[in-house]
């Protein structure tokens, strides 16, 4: 735990890894409280990772996949039901582009293989996606097509950040921020009231921050194609797949949004990416939340772009 001072209490920075990405908790409190906060945050993020990761075969999402293959329905707990309801609403609002059943498709696009999958494999995977085909009557869920998989990637990480911030507040932390791989949730501004400085990584060179955003409350989420990306014949293929076409989205390199919670910021940034270069920007502008889009050539646009341009 690295400590630095800012105002009366020290700032403790606790780095850990979960959900397949580097995470960090920054807390401005005394050492014991910071210790307890770190334990609480890691436990919660790991719980959610174990429950919802589609990389692991012992997760609840894997169990749901198994029930799909067996053609049976499965009863889900309240938390999962809320996540499913949220995803269903996003599916309706995005005209089907935001689809958590695109698990089969994300599997077919194996980005480590540096190989564009066969059209038939893509078509086969696409045939096993489609939230509109799911039978969802809370608390009973049935994925009608064997092989259909849930991928809560666009929701769970942001939800975990918010959860972590809430739990920190509950144990008495007033000043802090949780960062799960670029998705940030503010526990509370600095003791002196000043905002936390959040850096947004440059899509082309993740070591270097392209923008600094002040966050006093709420959350910041960034979705982009830089972490897991594959370049074949000079074309970039990102991990964000459009379930309607079956192919990764030709869109911005990254979209960042600030909102009242990391969950809403995440949904908005994913929408921005899914709607792509033309309607994505217009949709984000009408949304009314502060946002930053960076295209493949590194040009920044959006309400947060101007502030950084001058700095």
């Amino acid at each position, binding site marked *: 735990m690295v400590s630095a001072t800012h105002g009366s209490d020290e700032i403790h920075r606790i780095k850990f890894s979960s959900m397949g990405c580097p995470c960090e908790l920054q807390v401005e409190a005394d050492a014991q409280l910071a210790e307890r906060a770190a334990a609480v945050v890691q436990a919660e993020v790991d719980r959610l990772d174990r429950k919802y990761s589609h990389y692991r075969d012992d997760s609840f999402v894997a169990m749901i996949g198994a029930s799909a293959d067996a053609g049976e329905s499965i009863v889900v707990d309240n938390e999962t039901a809320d*996540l499913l309801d949220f995803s269903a609403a996003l599916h309706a609002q995005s005209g089907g582009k935001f689809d958590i059943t695109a698990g089969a498709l994300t599997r077919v696009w194996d980005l480590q293989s540096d190989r564009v999958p066969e059209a038939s494999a893509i078509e086969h995977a696409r045939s096993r996606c489609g939230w509109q085909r799911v039978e969802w009557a809370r608390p009973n869920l049935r994925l009608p097509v064997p092989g259909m998989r849930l991928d809560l990637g666009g929701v769970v990480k942001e939800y975990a950040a918010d959860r972590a911030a809430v739990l920190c507040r509950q144990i008495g932390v007033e000043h802090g921020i949780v960062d799960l791989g670029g998705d940030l949730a503010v526990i509370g501004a600095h003791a002196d009231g000043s905002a936390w400085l959040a850096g947004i990584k440059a899509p082309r060179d993740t070591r270097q921050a392209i923008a600094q955003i002040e966050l006093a*409350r709420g959350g910041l989420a960034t979705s982009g194609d830089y972490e897991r990306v594959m370049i074949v014949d000079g074309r970039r293929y990102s991990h964000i797949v459009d379930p309607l076409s079956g192919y990764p989205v030709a869109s911005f390199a990254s979209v960042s949004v600030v909102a009242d919670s990391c969950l809403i910021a995440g949904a*908005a940034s994913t929408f921005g990416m899914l709607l792509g270069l033309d309607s994505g920007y217009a949709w984000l502008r009408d949304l009314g939340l*502060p946002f930053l889009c960076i295209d493949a050539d590194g040009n920044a646009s959006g309400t947060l772009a101007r502030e950084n341009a001058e700095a």
Partner: protein
Amino acid sequence: MGARPHLSPSLAALMSAAAALAPEAHAQTATGAETDSRVSYRFNDYSEDSLAPGPHLGDPERYRVLSQQFQLATRAGSESAIDVSATHEVMSGSSPWYLLRGPDNRPIQVMSGATIQEHRNEVRASWTQGAGTSSSTTWSASYSQERDYRATALGVERSVPLGDALTLGYGGSFSHDLIDPFEAEKYDRVRHEDKNSASAFGSLAWVIDRASVLQTGLQLNVEHGYLSDPYKLVSVGSSLVDDLRPDRRVQAAWLARYRRAFSAADAALHVNYRYAQDNWGIVSHTVEAAWFQTLPSRWELVPSLRYYSQQQARFYAPYFVDAGSHNFYSSDYRLGTFGALSASFNLRKRIGKWEFSGGVERYHAATDYALGGADAVVPGVVSYTRAFIGLDYLLQ
């Protein structure tokens, strides 16, 4: 991330979808729609200007009234609503007693001694069936009690839709008042009197278009019993006699009210007119206009103007040379000819479930404001300033 002045539809859809998962964020920025169920408190400070400079006797400091209002309005079941309110007033200061003819014929206003402090309490309850719909019935009852006056009133109001554009309103009320003037022996005032009044009204509201509605209505009010003011005297010749008014009064009032919404400006215009006439000879015109301006982040500004003009009662005079043919006489300034101009400005701010309000009204009366000019002098004509602050908590 200050309060967003404008919640875009797509953001609202996202936030409502996330409500279950991010309750904290949701609760923080809950806007709280307009709701009829609320608990309200108002503190009012009413103070009359002291007597105009000129010959007078007694304390020129006129009435000051501090009054607190409490109200609970809530839905009861899906179709009815209950409204219970209580008012507590503390009154002090002196009021015009009688007029003497001065040496140069100019009236000398004699003020009654400053009363220490009088209290008035009133409770009022009403129950509405079919609340919020155009077909509704409201039953109401009220009781007002002060040291020398107790009034009980019952009322019913009914609203019936006639087709799609018209709504008929009708109803009535009955009030029984008991008057027990204090220090009756010392000042030889009437000991115990009572008064009954009954009112009936009919109205027709017409939806002109999707943004404006016009209502016209007629109210008839009949009072019978002791209608004089036990604390006021009248100079008749060289003696002083009690204020004496007829024991019956029939008053008819015709009102027209117009409301117009301006959705582009997010505002609404109110214009009211009232013509009133009674068998005491008092005829009055009242015109009122108010502009309700809604501003971003839940502010509301309401400036309003009012003009009132009345013609004196037949039996009003500052003083009477001799009894003559008069069988009724009063020099109460409220029965003289005068006009009044008033302007008011109210503010309202909504934060979450709380609503802060405040406002001020300046009312200035003068005999030459009257339509058709002044008649007999009315030295006691009163102007006042009234301010209020309020706090509402929205239930549900």
